[in-house]
Each structure stands twice: as C-alpha cells, then as structure tokens.
C-alpha cells in the first residue's frame, strides 16, 4: 500500500490513456485543473478541521482545568489534614450529564485516594511536577454502566498538583478531573460534517463549472475536427472557419496552407500525367499510320505470315492508343478537373438515345443488335428525365458502357439501352445477352485495370471511368447478371428537382 502511493505521478502515468502524447486534451485539462484543486481543497479542509479541532480541544481542556481548580478549592487544608467541603449538590452538577461523565479524584500524597473515583487513570510519571500547572493527558476508565456491565470509557484527564501544609511540612495534593471523550468526539464529528458537506457541494459545483468551461473552450477545436472529418477524402478546398478563437484560427490557417500546397502538388502531378498522355499520342499515331501503310503494301499482302504479324502490331498500337484515351478520360473525371467544369440540367433519356444511335453502326459492324427500350408513356410523348450534372462527362460514361457491351457481348448478341424513372432517381440500364460477368467479379471490375476477361482490346479502365464520373455526379453504378446469360449495367442518378415557378 505504501509503495503504491510513493509515486503518485508514476501511478498517474500508468493509468490508461495517460501516456504522454495519447491522452485527450479534454481529459488532460480536466485532470490538471480538477485534481490539484481537489487535493488543495482537501488539504485546506483537513487543515481547517484540525484547526477547529484544536481550538475545540483547547476549550474543553480549559474547562477541565477550571473544573480541577474549583475542585481543588473544595479541599481546604486545615491543620495537618484536609477539610473536604464538597456538597452533594456540587457533585451532582458535575456528574449530571450521563452522556458526558465527569470523573474526579483527589489524592494526597499523589496516588493516595481520598476523594472521588478510584478508577482514575494514573497521570504520566513526572519527576518534579510543577505546582499549579495543569497536566492534560488521555486515559481509560474501567467503569460499569447502568446495567452493571463493564465498560471502558476513553477520557481526557487533567491533573493538578497543589502544595499545602505548613512550611515545615510541605504536602502535595493531586487533583484530577476526567471527562469522557464522547463529547469531544461528538464535536469533532460535527465539525467534520459541517465542513465536509459544503466542501463536497463546492467541489461538485466547481467540477461542473470547470468541465463546462473546458468543453466550451475546446468547442472550436471540436468544430474544426468535425469540419475536417466531414470532408470527402479528395476534397482539398480550404477550410472555412468563422468566429474561432485565435489559437484555432491559426491552426485552421496552417491547415489551409498545407491543403493549398497539397492541392498544388496534386494538380501538378495531374497536369504532368495529362501532358504525358497527350505526348504519347503523337508517336502512337505515327506507329498506327506506318503499320497501316505497311499492311497495305503489296509485299506484305503477298506474305500471309508477315501480314498476320503486322496486324498484331497494329492491334497493339490500337490498344495503346485506347489506353491513353481512357487514362485521359479518367483524369478528366477526377474531382479537381470536374469542379472546373459546369453542371447543367439535361435530359438523361435523350442523351442515352443519342449515345445509342451513335454506336449503332459500330454494333452492326460487330454483328450485334443494339437498340433502346424506353417505357413509353400513354400519350406517346416521352417524359424527359431531367438530371443535374456535367453532360459531357455523363455522355462519356454512357459511351463507355455501350462500348463495353459491344466489345464483349459477342457476335449475335443483342444490347438494349433503356432510361426511365424510379422514384426520385433517373435510371439508365445497358443490358446485353453476351457471356456476362461472374457475380463474384461484379464489384472488382470497377477497379482500375481489372478486366473480367483477357480477350479483346480493352484496357480495364472503362468501368473505372464510369464509376468515377457517375459517383462524382452523386449517382451510382452497379452490375447485375441476366438470365440465361448476359450483363446489365445500371446507372442511377437523382432526378433534378424542378423549381416551382
């Protein structure tokens, strides 16, 4: 027990959450404000208590001394003896309080009982007791209570040595008065209660005020934290913090400076990637053109193996070009780029039909039946599906979906694009009867460079682009399997709310 309290600071440090650097500011402040206050208050209380106790004891001791002196006066020396003038009434007064028993004894020479209770505890041995000087000490009296049972009473005793007798024959008298400590203990307890209760209230009130003060003081920090936490992961715009205290404002400023630097870095990187991709296109165009030329030369046409090889080279060039285009499309769909582009209200159904119509020749060339299937409204007029977003980017997303379907559905398959409303959403689906994608891959294929199949010239970015664009427009995209075989891509976007005139 002793060892544990030898190092309170060490104990404090071992408490959970209090290793330096990990404790919360809140708790830290509370700890450092409340704990020392608590300790100081308790110390003050204990000091006050002891002071009050001492004064109370002094009062009691003084009264005991007075009682001993007045008792001493009742014992008058006469001649060579002692005349005891201690009327019964006086005795009764002294012994009146049953809760607070007073005992007394007169002995002369000291120790030789002549009057009072013989049970008086012995005074501490003093060789040359000073005369007329009260000595106060504690002792125990073995008493019997009303039912005649043995009872030990703690008492406070005053011992007074007095001299009497003729000059030639000096005598010493010992007057002792004892009082049970009950009243003292009562008093002590009363003092304790009287100080403890208001003290506890004070401590409780102070704790509440301190806690409230800390909370209020740290509130701007909590606000800053919630502002930062509610940020999207890619959002690097500056933090706006109105009416914040100095320290928090400078923190927010520092954060904004950091964000600006990061933003600049990210933009520089993006610009570099974009420039690099653009630069790659020229040599790729050269590669493609030269290969096409070679393929059309008579020497190559006469050599089937050479022709086949060159065809593969051409395919590789086409694939590379496609990859570069998709990379650029993906870069364009990123939030920083998209933020600079405008959002407008447009008809999603009309866009879907346009995109489909544009892709029909390609589908025919691939031997695929591409068409639309919009739910027709009774009067033959299609209700427009108004959405809010960047029309060019959404077009790119839809083109990618239809392009995917054409690439992978296979000859003889059919693809249907349809747009309709579902509750508060506008929904566009691209459904094909091709081989489809296994359910286990439905989430995976939206990742960059993940392809469901290794056939064909795709580069694995198409669905990633779609997902990026659609999600930036507050929509969602998902894949579903079609029976008996095929794939349905579902794009959902919130319908634009038409403002009331």
């Amino acid at each position: 027990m002793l060892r544990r309290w030898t190092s309170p600071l060490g104990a404090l440090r071992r408490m959970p959450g209090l290793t330096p650097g990990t404790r919360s500011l809140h708790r830290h402040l509370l700890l450092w404000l409340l704990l020392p206050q608590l300790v100081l208050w308790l110390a003050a209380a204990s000091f006050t208590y002891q002071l009050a106790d001492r004064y109370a004891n002094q009062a009691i001791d003084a009264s005991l001394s007075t009682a001993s002196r007045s008792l001493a006066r009742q014992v008058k020396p006469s001649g060579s003896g002692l005349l005891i003038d201690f009327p019964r009434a006086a005795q009764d007064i002294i012994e009146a309080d049953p809760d607070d028993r007073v005992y007394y004894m007169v002995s002369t020479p000291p120790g030789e009982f002549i009057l009072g209770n013989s049970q008086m505890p012995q005074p501490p041995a003093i060789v040359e007791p000073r005369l007329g000087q009260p000595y106060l000490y504690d002792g125990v009296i073995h008493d019997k209570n009303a039912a005649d049972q043995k009872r030990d009473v703690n008492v406070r005793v005053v011992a007074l040595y007095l001299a009497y007798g003729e000059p030639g024959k000096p005598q010493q008298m010992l007057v002792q008065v004892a009082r049970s400590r009950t009243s003292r203990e009562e008093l002590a307890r009363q003092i304790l209660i009287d100080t403890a209760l208001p003290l506890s209230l004070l401590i409780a009130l102070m704790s509440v005020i301190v806690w409230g003060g800390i909370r209020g003081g740290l509130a701007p920090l909590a606000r800053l934290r919630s502002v930062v936490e509610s940020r999207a992961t890619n959002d690097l715009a500056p933090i706006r913090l109105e009416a914040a205290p100095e320290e928090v404002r400078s923190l927010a400023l520092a954060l904004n400076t950091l964000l600006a630097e990061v933003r600049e870095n990210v933009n520089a990187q993006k610009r570099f990637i974009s420039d690099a991709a653009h630069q790659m296109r020229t040599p790729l165009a050269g590669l493609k053109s030269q290969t096409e030329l070679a393929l059309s030369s008579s020497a190559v046409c006469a050599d089937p193996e050479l022709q086949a090889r060159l065809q593969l080279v051409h395919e590789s060039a086409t694939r590379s070009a496609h990859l570069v285009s998709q990379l650029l499309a993906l870069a364009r769909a990123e939030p920083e780029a998209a933020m600079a582009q405008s959002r407008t209200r447009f008809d999603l159904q009309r866009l879907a039909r346009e995109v489909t119509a544009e892709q029909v020749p390609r589908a025919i060339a691939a031997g695929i039946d591409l068409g639309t299937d919009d739910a027709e409204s009774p009067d033959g007029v299609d209700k427009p599906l108004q959405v809010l977003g960047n029309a060019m980017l959404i077009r790119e997303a839809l083109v990618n979906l239809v392009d995917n379907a054409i690439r992978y559905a296979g000859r003889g398959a059919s693809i249907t694009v349809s747009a309709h409303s579902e509750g508060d959403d506008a929904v566009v689906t691209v459904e094909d009867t091709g081989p489809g994608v296994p359910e286990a891959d439905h989430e995976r294929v939206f990742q960059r460079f993940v392809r469901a199949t290794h056939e064909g010239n795709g580069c694995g970015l198409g669905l990633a682009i779609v997902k990026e664009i659609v999600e930036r427009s507050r929509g969602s995209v998902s894949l579903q399997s079609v029976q008996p075989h095929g794939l349905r891509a579902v794009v959902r976007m919130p319908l634009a709310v038409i403002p009331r005139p």
Partner: protein
Amino acid sequence: MKLLLAEDDTILADALTVSLKGSGFEIEVAGNGAVAEYLLLRHDFDLGVLDLGLPLVDGLTVLKKVRAVKPTLPMMVLTALDGLEQRVAGLNAGADDYLTKPFDFPELEARIRALLRRAHGPVATPAVQTTGLLRFDREARRAIVDKTTLELSPREWTLLDLLLTQRDRVVTKEQIAQGWTPDPNEQNLGSIEVYIHRLRRKLEGSMVSIRTVRGLGYLLEAEGQG
C-alpha cells in the same frame, strides 16, 4: 490538290505523306511552326494540316497568323489535345476542322476532301446517289431500281431521301416525323412503321435494306455489309 502538313514527329509525318500521296494529293512537310507559317503565307496551298504542338512557333499561333492573311484557306488541326478548351480555342482561332490523334486514316482523308469540297463549291449531297442497285436522282426526282422506276408517295420520297442521306447511320422516328412536318403537334410516330413496310417492299431486289433499330428508328444500308 496541294497540301501542307505541319508535323514535327518524323515517323508520323512520313506515314501521312505516303498515305496522302497515295490518295492523289501533293504534299509538303514543315517540321516546325516557323517554316509552316512561311510556306503557308508565301506559297499556294489548297489546304493546311496543322499539328498544334510544333517547335519554334506553336500551331495555334501559326493558325491565327495565316488566318489573318488568308481567311478562306481551309485549315485542319491535327493534335493529341482533345480537351474541350483546346477544341474551342482551335476553332476560335480559325480552324475549319479538328481531329485528334491517333486517328483512322480514312477519316482524315474524308475530312480533308470534305473541307476541299466546301472550299470549291457547296455540294452538301450529291444530286445522284447510287446505293446497291438503287439510283436516287434528287434533281429529277426519280428513284430507279435496276431499270424500274419506283412509284413513291411524297412521304415515301422524303423518307427514302432522309434514309439515304444518313446512309449507315441511325435515323430516329422523331427525325422522320420532323422531316414530314416540322410542326410537332401534327407529328404522328405511329404511321412511320407502315411507310417503312411499304418502302421495304418497293426496295426488294435493290440490294438496299432498311434495318430496324430497336426503340430508336431505322438505318439504311447496302446489302452485303455487316
């Protein structure tokens, strides 16, 4: 026809030169913007193909300078930059067309020819269009399939004309209805199917077919394709 090609990538420039020569054009190549500008201003060319990313003087500047002196010279921009801003900047600087790399050569050629045609006389649609065994004469207003003249009502004629103009591309029902009456209140999509059916019957044996594109409209193509 004499073309100037401003392109600094030698491999691509070489491929383009050979291909365009093979299509019957005369080609001169400029490897940087300064030479391109000089040649375009000092010599006579029928068309200029400009890459935007040229050394010494960039393509956009050359374009602006040439445009200031020769406002009618057809100029096509051929570039890797496909962003909207670049496209708009190019067209605003005076480009007549904008093609991004990499491209398909046939498309480049078709666009060059389109620009040349535009410069040398407006011919939006050929007067006589032959598709398969169908000979469609817009001036004489006659459609002949293998020596037999087709009997076409006005609506059928408009429909066939539209389909032929947009050969190999989708013509939507809305476009057809609009071709018959521009007034949206009088448009009736339901009767289109009937007319298509009639046309199909009349076009039997012409090696021309009308394909139904589900939900969208129709597409005319020469048989033997796809």
